[in-house]
Structures are given as C-alpha cells and as structure tokens.
C-alpha cells in the first residue's frame, strides 16, 4: 500500500509540473486530469475510498470535461502556443520559485515534527454522510445555496431575449 502511495504521489507531482510547463493547452489539461486521478489514488490508499471516487467523478469527470468543452469552443491554435512560450520566460520564474521554496521549506519543517507512522482508518460512505448531515449540515446547506445562486445566474446569462 505504501508503495502505491509513493508511486501515485510521484505521478501527481510530475503531472502537475507538466501542467505548468506544457504550452499545448489540451495536453496541459490531460496532465491535470492525470494529476487529479493520482490524488484520487492517494485518497484511496489513505483509507478514504468515498473521497477518492468523488474526486474522480466531480473533478476529473465533470469539472475538467467542462474545461475541455470551453477549449473546444475557443478554437485555439498555434498562435496561443507561441504566446504561452513567450510568457514562460526564465525571468518570470524567479519570484514564484523563491516564494514556493519558502513554502516548501515550511512544509518540510512542519512534517518533520509529525509522527507520520499512522495506520489510516477506513472512512467509508456511511461515516462521511453521517458527518455531512450531522454536525456539518449548515455548511452543506450553505454550499447548496451558493450553487443555486450560480445556477440562477447562469440561467439569467443564457436566457435569450
């Protein structure tokens, strides 16, 4: 199981780096999907199968499909690829790299203090649902109201006069 975790983690990191470096937007999107699926595998290995499969359905399966749908509509070609290449200059890397390095250092420092030898407990569908509709029911309702607002806004924008 721990080997699965490391394989999925390495794939996730490589795929995420590839998302940033890729100048072809469709390929970048494919790497992003791969990265999300790798994260789903990590969830599964850590004992959260429900979260894993929701990650695959909602993020990799639904949201990314809409991204691809928009890309198909935009009719991007060689000129966007050239533009991407122009934007990815070495000078543009400096500031984000320094900031990310500081964050990474902090993260490693924090992780060193954690006793990482934890045997993950299985969190099934029942446990997640009991929490969602028990102590967190208010948050769930608020999130659904937010989605409803988005739905109404989309309806208003798409409505033909």
């Amino acid at each position, binding site marked *: 199981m721990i080997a699965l975790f490391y394989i999925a983690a390495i794939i996730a990191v490589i795929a995420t780096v590839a998302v940033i470096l890729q100048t*072809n937007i469709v390929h970048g999107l494919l790497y992003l999907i791969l990265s999300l699926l790798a994260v789903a595998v990590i969830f599964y290995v850590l004992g959260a*199968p429900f979260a894993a*499969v929701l990650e695959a359905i909602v993020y990799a*399966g639904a949201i990314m499909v809409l991204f*691809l*749908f928009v890309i*198909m509509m935009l009719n991007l070609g060689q000129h966007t690829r050239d533009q991407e290449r122009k934007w990815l200059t070495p000078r543009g890397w400096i500031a984000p790299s320094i900031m990310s390095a500081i964050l990474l250092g902090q993260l490693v420092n924090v992780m060193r203090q954690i006793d990482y030898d934890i045997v993950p407990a299985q969190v099934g569908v029942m446990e997640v649902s009991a929490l969602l509709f028990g102590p967190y029911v208010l948050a769930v309702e608020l999130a659904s109201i937010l989605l409803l607002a988005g739905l109404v806004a989309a309806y208003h924008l798409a409505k033909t006069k």
Partner: protein
Amino acid sequence: MSLEIGSPLTIGLILLVVIGTAAMLITVERRLLGFWQERLGPNRVGWFGSLQVVADMIKIFTKEDWIPPFADKFSFVIAPGIIMSAVLLSFAVIPFAPDIGVIDSNIGVLFVLAMASLGAYSVMLGGLSSDNKYALLGSLRAAAQMVSYEVFMGISLLGVVALTGSFNMREIVEAQTDGWYIIPQFIGFVIFLIAGVAESHRLPFDIPEAEQEICAGYHTEYSGMKFGMFFVAEYIGLVLISSLITVLFFGGWLGPSFLPPIIWFFVKASAFIGFFILMRAAVPRPRYDQLMSYGWLFLLPLSLVNLLVTGVIILSTQ
C-alpha cells in the same frame, strides 16, 4: 488456480467473455436488425453468418492505420485507448455470480459512474484532435450529451442505493432476494435505461456520430484498428449497460435454482442486449435540442421526484 473473486483465472475469463461477447455482437446485431427489418443481413460467411465477425476482424486489422498529418498526434492516439480502458475497468465491480467477479468493492456503483464520466474524454479528445469540422461538431454534441445524461444516470441509481443502504453491488443483488428492484424502482429503471443508451451513444441517441448529418462525427478521421477500438468499445458499453441493469434492477444472478447463477445472469443480460438492438431498429433519432430539453426539463425533475418519494417511503416504513 481456482475460480474465486479476484483470482487471475477469473479476471482472464471475464475479460475474454466480455470482449468475445462484444465482438460477436457486431454480427448478432446485424442479423437481428435484418430480422426485425424483414431482410436477411450477413448470412454468407460460416453457419448462418456466424463467421462474419472473423471476416470483419481480418478486415479491420489489415486496414491502413492512418493518422492525419494535421491532427494532434498525442491526443489522437490516446483517445480510443481511454474509452476502451474506461469501459473494461467498469466490469471490475460487476458481480457476475456469488463467486465470480474481479473485486468486491464498497464503492462499486460510484466506480462505474466515475468510469462513465472518464469515458467522455475519449469522444471529446478524438473529435478535438482530428482538426476536422464534422469531428469537432460531433464531439461538442457528445460532450454536452454525456455530461447531461451522467447527471440523471447517477440520480436514478440513488433509489436503489437508498433501498439497499450500500454502494456495494453484491449487497445490492443480495438485497433483491425478496423481490427485484424493478417493482419499487420502476421510474428509476426507465430513467437509467434511457440515460444508459445516451451514455453509450447508440441509436436512437447516436447524435454525436449521426452519419446522415455529420459524416461519422467524432471518429470521422479514424481508420483501421483505432476506429475498431471505438467500434468495439461501443459494444462493450452496450454489454456493460445491460449487465448494470441486470444487477441493479433485475436481481443479478438470482433466479430459480434449476439453472446455475451465472446462467441466470447471462440470460437476463442477453435479454437487455436484445432489447437495445430492437430499440435501434425501431426508434428514430431525436434532434439535438430535443435531446437536451428532454433530459433537463423532463428526466431530471422526474429522477429527483423519484428519489424524494423513495426516501419518504423508506423513512415512513422504518
């Protein structure tokens, strides 16, 4: 090696049977369509045309596999592989009989839905990378259709899941010992059936590849075995939807004991495969906007009401 859940022999046999059935369906479908439309269909090769599938296979394997120079090669090549792996992986959670299956998973139903939504990429990438107007139109239609019908497909299954209290397909089958879910969940069954056809984009919902309007839709530029993979994956999808209906609404392997469980499964699944082929012969294709408004304005409210009523009944009988 023995026949038990997850042994290499079982997995190999399941793969062989699923792909074999899908390949045979190419001939069976043409023969059945011929029968229903009062013509003969392919009956020259072998006994009643049974070797037609071999001839088709030889043809498709020896054809030139051409990648258009203007296509995006990376996406073009992986697109048929995605749909093939997505539909085949879905069979991992299908319980064929008490001791035959690949895995016994607590998230079985969700896993199938996840694989169905990943399958949508294949059609979209195939059309997008072909750099062809017809292919792009086809994959735009496919994307809208598959994303929409996934929603009702998921919601229509929740009634079954709520009645069982589990996403595990084996538990769903065992919970139907006293009566199949087709009776309490008839509306869910009808919605799942329609969404299933739309999801595997077969006639009458083959709008993404409607050949009279947009050539062959998303696989216009595909040839040889890459086209063959799209083609076979469609039949595997048909077998998958039939197996899912059998498991979720018709008691899976359950049946009177004069036949072994696996035979009951095959009998029920074959009946649904036949029904889908009959639908292809009998129902005309709707228009694209009709398909969309039918889904969002009729099937979505209906599936929500079905779920609500099921929930009320479960809570009031407890």
